[in-house]
Each structure stands twice: as structure tokens, then as C-alpha cells.
């Protein structure tokens, strides 16, 4: 069942066709990977879907409802959450507060001036649970800025996940970490989204990671969709192998 689809979506930056007539679909419950070389249009596509950018043409439909012109806030309310390519946290707040704040925001409680945030047992309990799911239960008291890179990446995802979205976009959640940490991060993300039946779209460059964890892969090149299919099909796709990677894909 289709959760999200774009219809002839276009975004041009001058002469550059960053997203060029893209018809992209996400099916409920899947873990989809968006791959492509730098400048292929992956992040721009996610930016358009999350309302960070506005399209020049085309439509974005979530549950068949047109959200093309809705605001960031409306899209979050509709169930779209995202993380960013570079870790985007509240560095001077504790790791726990980062997650708790997402829960406060989701519950519409951030406008409350006259209650003590730390005394909200319901939020504390849920934030504690999310921290545990991402293996950060012992890091809650540290400021987000003081965490190791791998922990920051996980916290970044945990903050987006704490919004309990229908559709979660993760932009390069494993970039800049060691191979061991990369697999650990992906194991954690994969187990959480599958256990909670969250639909997730992951932008990723590491094809080993992509083939290991994805249900479906969409490959982009020069703003267009080059290939779309299950991992085995993409692995054997010569266009992807030559155009995208310039070499044979790992077996």
C-alpha cells in the first residue's frame, strides 16, 4: 500500500536539474534506500518531501492527500520526520533533553510556560524508553555536544523517531563513522523501525549497508530515478553498476 508518492516532481537550481520529473513512491512498512552519487538529487528529493525546499513543479501525496504546498509544521503533523546529512542536535542540552523535547513537541506541550519539564513523568518514561531502544540509556546526562560521533548519529535518529512518524527520512545516518559503528548503527535503526513498523527511507552511500538492510532500493542519477527494485534486482542492474558506481556491485 502506497504511503507516499511524488508526481512529476521538479526542482531546478538555475541550469542544474536537481530533481527532474521524479515519480517516487514509498510503500507502507518498508525500509527503502535511496542511493546515488553526490549531486544525484537524493537530499534535494528528501528536502522537497519534508518541506525544507519547495518544488518548482509536481505534486507530493501522503496517503493520497496533496501536501505539496503545506508547511514544515503541517508535514510533521501529517507524520513526516527527518534527520539531516550533518548531525543536527541541540548541543548544549543533554542527550535526554534532546529526545524529551521531541516528545514534548509531538504532544503539543512546548507552549507550556508554567510547568516543570522534568516533572512530566509520562514524557520522562517515554524518553527513557526511546533512549534505551537506541542504546543510549547511559548517555542521557551528557550534553549532546559531548557525545562520540556514532552516539550523536544515533541520537539524531532517536530525536526524529521520538516524533513517532509514519514516514522517517534518514539522511546518511552512518556517514563519518567507522565500519564497525556503521553496522551497529544500522542494526539499531533497522531493529527499531521494523519492531515499531515505521516506514523508513534511508539515504546511504555504502552499498554493503544498502544491500544488507533494505527491502527496496531506488537509485538516482542526475536528478532522475535510474532504477527501482529489490536489492537483488539492483545488484544485477548494469546501469546502476556502471553509471552510478563505475564498477561492478559487490556480490
Amino acid at each position, binding site marked *: 500500500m502506497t504511503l507516499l508518492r511524488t508526481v512529476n516532481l521538479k526542482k531546478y537550481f538555475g541550469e542544474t536539474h536537481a530533481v527532474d520529473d521524479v515519480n517516487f513512491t514509498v510503500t507502507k512498512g518498508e525500509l527503502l534506500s535511496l542511493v546515488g552519487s553526490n549531486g544525484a538529487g537524493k537530499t534535494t528529493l528528501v528536502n522537497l518531501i519534508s518541506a525544507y525546499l519547495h518544488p518548482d513543479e509536481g505534486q507530493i501525496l501522503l496517503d493520497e492527500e496533496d501536501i505539496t504546498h503545506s508547511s514544515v509544521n503541517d508535514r510533521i503533523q501529517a507524520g513526516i520526520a527527518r534527520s539531516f546529512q550533518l548531525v543536527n542536535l541541540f548541543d*548544549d*542540552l543533554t542527550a535526554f*533533553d534532546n529526545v*524529551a*523535547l521531541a516528545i514534548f513537541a509531538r504532544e503539543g506541550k*512546548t507552549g507550556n510556560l508554567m510547568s516543570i519539564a522534568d516533572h512530566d513523568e509520562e514524557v520522562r518514561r517515554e524518553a527513557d524508553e526511546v533512549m534505551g531502544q537506541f542504546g543510549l540509556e547511559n548517555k542521557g546526562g551528557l550534553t549532546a555536544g559531548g557525545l562520540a560521533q556514532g552516539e550523536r548519529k544515533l541520537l539524531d535518529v532517536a530525536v526524529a523517531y521520538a516524533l513517532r512518524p509514519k514516514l522517517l527520512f534518514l539522511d546518511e545516518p552512518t556517514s563519518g563513522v567507522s565500519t564497525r559503528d556503521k553496522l551497529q548503527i544500522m542494526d539499531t535503526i533497522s531493529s527499531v523501525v521494523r519492531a515499531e513498523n515505521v516506514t523508513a527511507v534511508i539515504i546511504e552511500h555504502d552499498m554493503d549497508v544498502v544491500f544488507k538492510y533494505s527491502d527496496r532500493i531506488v537509485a538516482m542519477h542526475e536528478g532522475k530515478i535510474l532504477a527501482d527494485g529489490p536489492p537483488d534486482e539492483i545488484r544485477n542492474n548494469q546501469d546502476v553498476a556502471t553509471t552510478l558506481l563505475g564498477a561492478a556491485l559487490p556480490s
Partner: protein
Amino acid sequence: MKFGFIPTDKLSPWRLAAHGAPIVVVLLLFPQFGGLYQTQLLTYGLIFAIATLGFNLLLGYTGLLSFGHSAYFALGAYTAAFMVKYLGVGSMELYILGGLLITAVISAAFGYVCVRHTRIFFAVLTLALSQVLWTLAYKFFWVTGGTDGIRVPFSKMTLLGGVVDFTSRGGYQSFVFSYYYYVVGLFLVCVSLMWVIVHSPFGKALQAIRDNETRAQFLGIRVRHYRWIAFLVSGTFTGLAGILWVPLNGLVTPDIAWWPFSGEIVFMTVLGGFRNFTGPIVGAVVFNYLKTYAIASTVFWQAALGIILLVLVLALPAGIVGACSRLTAKLRQKKEDEEDMAT
């Protein structure tokens, strides 16, 4: 269950009351050993502390540097003065009601304009708007008294709905001591209120906006709207300080709307430390003493204050309270290390 961030017991009202109680006791007993002059000085310090508490909601918690907070201080002060001059009002409580209303309305309007921008643009907008008010106070002399200002005699004023007045002999001494307790009461209310605000979900959202505006937006936090509310609260606190300052000073002139006074509010906050709750309070009280004694000691008092600010920024960027906190943490760590070594 294990909670990672600030332990709940650290924020329990009883624990806070236990920490605050000695300070409250000192404040209550101060007139007994401080005498008239020192009590008057501390009253000024506490009034400025209310202004810096408000100011720091913007600077320390929201990450917005205002160079125009003299405007809200002056609005509170002039409203009280107008109520005396044109309406013949003598009740302090009515000054507060009227002053807060006017300050809140103007803060809301100025804030609506200013929070559309950040960084230097925000600072310049706040400065420009405060200079508009200063010009009005300076040029519309037939209303504001111009540079002569408006007198607000304490002898015509009453506290607590008329229960306390100062018409008898020795009225000034009686006024200073009574007014000190009045200010202490309001100061404690303001501190409690601001403490709740900065520890509320709203306060956390402001800190999130300060740290990372884009991410805050992508959590569904209405960034501009929250900045506007912070501006409104901040301006209103500063306005209350202006209202309280007028009877003690006895005169209001355009000087308090001028930009150097905004600079003094910034100075006080930086002096105490703007990344912690108590820093602006300590900064305001200390600055008031520093300025008073600098003026009494040398004609080059502005230079003396300038040197202090220079040293402060270079040597103690976290301010007095921030530096003390770091020192305490270091000493505690050293003690723990020594204990570990011993065992």
C-alpha cells in the same frame, strides 16, 4: 528507573527552597546591618536584577542579543510617571498594573517586528526601536518634560493599596526600608516565575531554538512564535523593573531610554554570566555597586568600567557565576580524585 538528565531531586521545590532560604534570610535582615544607604543601593541592584532576568531570557536562553532593552525599562518608568503627573495616581499597585499593560503591548508590537530576524539584524532592530522611544521622550518635552524629566515624589506614593504611606516625618527613611521589602517581595516572585519559565517545556524549546533553529523547526516548534513570546515576557520583566525604579529614583529622564542604558543591561548580564540562571542577578547587583563606587572614586569611571568589561570578556567569559561554578566543579573533581587515590 534510570533517568539520564537533570535528576528530579535537583529540581524539587523543597531542595530549591533549602538552597534559597539563606539568601532570603540575608535579604530580609539586610536593612538591620546595612543601614539606609546600603539598603538603597541593594534595592537598586535588585530592581536591575529583575531587568536582567528578563533580558537573559532572550540572550541566554533564546540566543537573541537585544541592544534595546532600555526601551522597556523606560516604558515602565514613564508610564508610572505619567500616571502620577496626569492622573494623580499614588498607588504603587496601579503603577504596576498600568506599566505592565503598556510594556506588554509595546513589547508585543516591537517583538513582532524584531523576531523576524536574528543575530546582528535583530540587535540593530531592537536598538533602532529603542532610539525611537528615546527620541519621543527627548523631543516631546511638553508631554515628557524633555531632559528635565518628570518627578515622581515618594511622599505622594502608597504601597499595598494605601496601607503604607510616607507622609509622616522621617518619611524618606521609612520609604527606603519599606520599599526595600516591597522590592524584595517582587524580586522573589520574579525569580520564581522566571525559574519556572526556563525549566518549563517552553524554556527547553527556547534553548533548542538557541542551539539549532533548523532542527527545532523540524520538531514542529514554531520558532518565530516562541521567540515572540520570549520577547514579550522579557520586555515585560524589564518594564516591571522600570516601574519599580521610578519611585526610588524620584525622577525619570530620557537617559534611561537611551542606548547606553541598554548597554549597561548587557554589561550586567555578561558580568554575572548569561549561560546560567543566577548570573544575571549577581551581575546586576555587583554592577550597581561597581558603578556607584567607580563614580565616587574617579572622574574616569567609564574607563574603569570599560577595563573591567575588557578583562571580563577576555579572562572570565562565563562571568562571575560561571567562573565560580567551574572553579567549584574543578575543586570537587580534585577532591574526588584524591579520595580515589587514597582508597
